[in-house]
């Protein structure tokens, strides 16, 4: 009997080593796997590359991870927020590397990674600073930028319900990057609010099939 449910968030971090590339779900705080991030901070792996839409808020979750000094580089679309002062300070003092990627290109690059494509031509960012030095091509009169896949060693995501095969559902707009990050990483760890019996999730309603998920951690009391 296969059981992907891992007892604690700390246990789930045991494979994460220095230098890993980690996708972290969430759009702002919605869908951010806060408890997994706390465990990652405790794990204290160094020199990480983090891919996430934002660069943290206040002093929790992703912001706290940055503050811990574990992160060498962050790839994101929108680091600057009203309460992203931890990132702001690290960036301005040259203590963290930043790669800004348009949000849709971030998604498309992860989808390319998850689905085995070698590269994609996207119209987004053509002619802008974010396409500088990148290969371009005009196809049917439209200008495109060549973008390469993002693949990662790990993904930490937040889902709603999960089962022992790793099937997941999400809650409202907390779904955001979860499903595409799960597919783009070699080892996906999902925190869920509830672990349900196998078969309790309707096969029509499963958003992330278990094939993309390697560990499921139940966070008690989480919504």
């Amino acid at each position, binding site marked *: 009997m296969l059981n992907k449910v891992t007892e604690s968030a700390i246990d789930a971090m045991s494979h994460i080593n220095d230098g890993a590339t980690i996708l972290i779900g969430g759009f702002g705080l919605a869908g951010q796997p806060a408890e997994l991030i706390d465990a990652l901070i405790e794990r204290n792996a160094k020199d990480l590359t983090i891919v996430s839409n934002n660069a943290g808020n206040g002093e929790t979750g992703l912001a706290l991870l940055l503050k811990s000094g574990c992160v060498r580089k962050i790839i994101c679309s929108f680091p600057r927020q009203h309460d992203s002062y931890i990132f702001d300070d690290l960036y301005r003092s040259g203590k963290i590397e930043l790669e800004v990627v*348009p949000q849709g290109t971030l998604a498309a690059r992860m989808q390319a990674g998850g689905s085995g494509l070698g590269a994609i031509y996207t119209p987004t960012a053509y002619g802008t600073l974010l396409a500088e030095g990148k290969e371009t091509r005009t196809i049917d009169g439209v200008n495109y930028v060549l973008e390469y896949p993002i693949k990662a060693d790990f993904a930490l995501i937040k889902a709603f319900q999960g089962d022992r095969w790793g099937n997941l559902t999400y809650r409202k*707009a907390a779904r955001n990057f979860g499903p595409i990050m799960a597919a783009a990483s070699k080892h996906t760890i999902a925190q869920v609010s509830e672990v349900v019996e196998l078969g309790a999730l309707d096969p029509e309603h499963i958003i992330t099939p278990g094939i993309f998920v390697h560990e499921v951690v139940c966070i008690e009391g989480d919504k």
Partner: protein
Amino acid sequence: MSNYTPRSVDEIAKCVAQDIEEGMYVNLGIGQPTKVADFLPKDKDIFLHSENGVLGMGPAPEEADRDGDLINAGKQYITLLKGGSYFHHGDSFAMIRGGHIDLCVLGAFEVAKNGDIANWFLGRPKDIPAVGGAMDLAVGAKKVYVIMDHVSKNGEPKIVESLNLPITGEKCVNRIYTDLAVIDITEQGLVVREMVDGLTFDELQSKTGATLRQP
């Protein structure tokens, strides 16, 4: 000087709302464009898209009904209309980049006469670049409308011959709504559709960095 009153933020939003037709799929950018939602006709089905995976956005909830998992791209609490749906970021940007969004309303620092838009980065030494979905929306939506003040706080024109600031997307703006006028960007250049009462064409031209045409 003639005697005119610039439009308020709400009045501009109202102008945009009047130009949105039933059945349109619309993405309202962060900031001023978000206000357009308040003036959409309640009796028409207009579909608001939020790039974080929501279609069919409804008005802000009562404080008691706020849900941290139900926010818009500006991280404000929202509601979902009956018939709305949730999806992941890949599908959400397929909607945008794939040309399925009929209209996107964006704020801007500058718009050039050819439709180039700058709205993501001022590029000053201390600025931290942050683009979000701006570049995807600029190139992907079927039409892009811009809401902005006609001139900057220093009185500089924001409608210009060519951009001074880092570009977001090339030749993508179709119409500009400012506090003074509504201007179409056409093959023939900048065409003034409408001005606030009391403003003369010459005055509008004097506040604009590129040649305007009368319709």
